[in-house]
């Protein structure tokens, strides 16, 4: 593309059918304890690795 650089094509939609195993870390346990942020979390689903 001439005018556009795509950083990521996004995988939110495809994650809907593969996800939901619930094994990943609870967000508030990581560092903050006063807010909820999931942007930085890792997926722990063995099947997605």
């Amino acid at each position: 593309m001439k005018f556009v650089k795509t950083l990521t094509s996004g995988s939110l939609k495809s994650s809907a059918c593969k996800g939901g195993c619930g094994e990943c870390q609870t967000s508030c346990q990581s560092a903050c304890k006063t807010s909820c942020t999931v942007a930085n979390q890792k997926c722990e689903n063995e099947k997605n690795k």
Partner: protein
Amino acid sequence: MIHQYSRNGINIVLDVESGAVHILDDLPYKILTYIDEENIAAECPAIVYKELTGYSDSDISFAYSELYSLYKKGMLFSKRDYNIPLQEEYPIKALCLHISHDCNLRCGYCFADGGDFMQGRKIMPYEVAKAAIDFIVARSGARKHLEVDFFGGEPLMNFDVVKKTVKYARSLEKEKNKEFRFTITTNGLLLNDEIIDFINSEMGNVVLSLDGRKKVNDSVRKTPNGKGSYDIIVPAFRELVKKRGGKEYYVRGTFTAQNLDFSKDVIHIHSLGFDQVSVEPVVLDKDNPMAIKKEMLPVIFKEYDELADKLITLRKKGDFLNFFHFMIDLEQGPCVIKRVKGCGSGTEYVAVTPDGDIYPCHRFVGNSRFIMGNVMNGFDTDKKISAEFAECNVLTKPECEKCFAKYYCSGGCAANNFNENGDIKKPHEISCELEKKRIENAIYIKAVEALQK
């Protein structure tokens, strides 16, 4: 829905529903503002040619065709065309264990009011901790990874029970097919070699509380007789991190209305030799002089921008600093189901007090309306309360549904919402504004780093 913003000449577009992120030249960036999301034509609308003078017709039509092809590929103006399966009840797999409702500091902003959560100073007896472990094993269903955070007050004031609890939990792992992941949050005053070695071998993550510059830290994080804590804790934290061997840790500070120039505190913590840093806005009642108020937002926004710039400069020089709230994984973060469910308070995550009372999370402790049960009286919990929290997610909150940050923020903090608005579902405006700003910066850092490659 898209979100577009520019920083230092870089035009960024986030396509909210797909999670796609693009960097655009000025021309397509301007064209975007003319596109009606509900009515996207294959040809560029005539008004664009008329209004964007200074660009050739062929460039305009080419730039539009690039945007249109992104749209066709589902990477721009995409819509949610799938269902996100949510349940009413979840296995409980994470515990905040209030191992000590006592503290050896008296921090001016403590939400636990000096560590006792307005319930009197108490430490958790081993029997209660043990019952809490049995509780999570019993209630976690098929979940394998269980998380237990030792919290307070100051958890090291009850270190013996911490040790015994870890040992007990580990003894169950094989038989019950569970893996415990322990974490601890400490102010560092009681750290010694034995405790450091124990933490480094058993805790998957350790959160070390330090607010930054000595003056900033010592004006708030004081001992009961009013002395600052900086000189005691900094050497202890350094020792712990040196011996940690690359395992996860965070030096975690709090900023208040008194140090809105907190990017200096982040940089100061880094200069002490720590590269995993989290500095968060204080949570306090509006009328507290240290509270963050709406009128301070522009100053804080500038500070986050500056911090992002400092981080980029550092990393360019080959140095490393990770700021918790600027971390973002654009490729392989958690699935969308996790992203809409959020923190899991009251559903997957609960807090247990020294008396064994179960609350939706550590920040609800002390408000009896939220007691869900007691681990000493059986493992059932109040279904009404957990259903209320399960219903509180990005998809059910109108403000969140419209918000570009929803899949990164995951719907904010129910406790902040409740304290501010008396409703766990009504977002706390200041927290939202800060979260959105941090996410913009997190994506901006990724964009700068991609362009440098």
